[in-house]
């Protein structure tokens, strides 16, 4: 039986404003002592009132523009009422029927499929709960602890149309969305730290038949987890249907350690949020002047940056990787100032450099290698001062010490030997020291040549220019 999948995604991004959505407390809460970043407003103390952060609205508008949304000239806030200990007012101020933007779209970078964006709206984040158990999971806790530092941090919620037909499309979308918010400068899109969160709605149906029952998936904290969770859930639903069962409309949690989705049934009956317009705030008016200003100051979007990188001589695939990771693209742009072959720079960054970064688990800008230094290293290769192979060694040292490549080359005596007379001397020595090899070569064992080259390189500690070595050895052998 052929099954088709329908997936929709709801993504929440924390905005990089300095202050919270409705008060002047800092949004920089990570690693801070609990409850040190709060005020009457974000605590919801009796008598407190919210006042909207202008920058948060601008950021939301930037996102709406980037996602090709219809910007509504008038939108307003609603209260979503429910009881939960991380929600200090027992309601969340969010938007409901009239959001900041709606009816947009985004084109996926690889599959080029168009995904509809239903809406983008502003809302406030809740506090954080800590469950003092061995696992840190709520199911095993007998009590919990509340930290309101995060309460009131601005979020935008981006709801997609249920246009995804596979988990890989969903993942592609999420990665592109992350890239977009990073390029817009409105969010750092970090799933591990929670500044970007994703919920999914998944259903399956037999080809040609009606849409299936939607299941909501939560708690997917990385791109991999998203893909795994979606794949698992699709399989689960298909199996269930095949065995004669019915998919229930419910919310399920993805458990990364157990690699499965778990039902959250057994919770109270369906919530009634009793939405009504927030009387403590007035409507948001977005006029043309404001929009013009924002459009004028829009940063370059990933799609445009990709095109521009390609026009600089880089392959599409490489360009995509450097755009998906904004910090890498930024580094690349900086490095290009110091060396004019973009393709070579890109290869280095995506090769050795990325290798070291992954090993060390760090961001490119946190490394000790400055873009100017990378440029210099490549210049040294270009002008023949060092060979490509030696350069790798030099880079390794640069990565751990941050020293300039010239300094390293000088200290380690790694300058490439190009002086033919010197190389000739070494070649002569090697030939003299390996008479058996020479004989083998003449007898027809051609591969022995490389061994001899290797010996010359060894003798010069890799500093000889390998091409020159080959030439000379060829002549002398």
């Amino acid at each position, binding site marked *: 039986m052929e099954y088709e999948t329908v997936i929709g995604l709801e993504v929440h991004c924390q905005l990089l404003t300095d202050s919270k959505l409705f008060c002047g407390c800092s949004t920089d809460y990570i690693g801070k002592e609990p409850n040190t970043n709060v005020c009457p407003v974000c605590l919801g103390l009796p008598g407190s009132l919210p006042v909207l952060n202008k920058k948060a609205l601008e950021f939301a508008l930037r996102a709406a523009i980037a996602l090709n949304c219809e910007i509504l000239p008038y939108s307003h806030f609603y209260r979503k009422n429910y009881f939960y200990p991380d929600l200090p007012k027992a309601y969340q101020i969010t938007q409901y029927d009239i959001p900041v933007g709606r009816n947009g779209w985004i084109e996926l970078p690889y599959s080029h499929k168009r995904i509809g964006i239903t809406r983008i709206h502003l809302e406030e984040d809740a506090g954080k709960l800590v469950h003092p158990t061995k696992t840190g999971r709520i199911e095993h806790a007998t009590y919990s602890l*509340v930290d*309101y530092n995060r309460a009131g941090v601005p979020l935008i919620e981006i709801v997609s149309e249920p246009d995804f037909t596979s988990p890989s499309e969903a993942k592609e979308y999420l990665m592109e969305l992350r890239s977009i918010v990073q390029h817009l400068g409105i969010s750092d899109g970090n799933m591990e730290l929670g500044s970007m969160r994703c919920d999914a709605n998944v259903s399956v149906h037999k080809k040609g038949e009606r849409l299936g029952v939607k299941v909501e998936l939560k708690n997917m904290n990385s791109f991999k987890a998203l893909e795994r969770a979606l794949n698992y859930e699709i399989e689960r639903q298909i199996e269930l249907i095949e065995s004669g069962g019915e998919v229930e409309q419910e919310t399920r949690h993805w458990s990364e350690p157990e690699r499965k989705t778990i039902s959250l049934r057994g919770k109270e009956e369906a919530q009634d949020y009793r939405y009504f*317009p927030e009387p403590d705030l007035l409507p948001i008016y977005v006029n043309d002047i404001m929009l013009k200003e924002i459009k004028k100051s829009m940063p370059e979007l990933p799609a445009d940056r990709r095109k521009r990188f390609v026009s600089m001589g880089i392959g599409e695939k490489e360009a995509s990787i450097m755009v998906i990771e904004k910090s890498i693209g930024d580094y690349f742009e900086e490095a290009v100032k110091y060396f004019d072959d973009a393709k070579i720079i890109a290869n280095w960054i995506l090769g050795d450099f990325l290798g070291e970064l992954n090993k060390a688990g760090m961001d490119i800008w946190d490394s000790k290698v400055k873009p100017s230094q990378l440029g210099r290293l490549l210049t040294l290769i270009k002008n023949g001062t060092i060979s490509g192979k030696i350069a790798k060694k030099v880079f390794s040292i640069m990565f751990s010490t941050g020293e300039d490549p010239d300094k390293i080359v000088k200290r380690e005596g790694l300058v490439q030997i190009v002086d033919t007379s010197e190389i000739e001397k070494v070649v002569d020595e090697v030939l003299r020291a390996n008479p058996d090899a020479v004989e083998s070569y003449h007898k027809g064992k051609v591969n022995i040549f490389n061994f001899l080259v290797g010996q010359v390189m060894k003798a010069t500690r890799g500093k000889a220019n390998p091409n020159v070595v080959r030439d000379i050895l060829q002549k002398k052998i």
Partner: protein
Amino acid sequence: MDVRHISKLANLDFTEDELKEMEKHFNSIMQYFKKLSSVDTEGVEPTFYVIKHQTPMREDKLKKGLDRKDVLDIAPHTEGGYIRVPQIR
């Protein structure tokens, strides 16, 4: 009105007698509310906002908040800088 369901939403407990009283009270109020349904509100905008302005906005600047002491001093149950709540399920 399903008083039991509403009381669950509102997190209020009532005795059976109290629920009966509540139902009685609501039934009499409903008479008043019925009056409203007879009003022709075709084409009338709801007064969600008494004030006819846009929402004022503030600059994205930091402002000093409360000291943690202020928060914890008034909290009924705390533990190491956090506010403590019983088991959440």
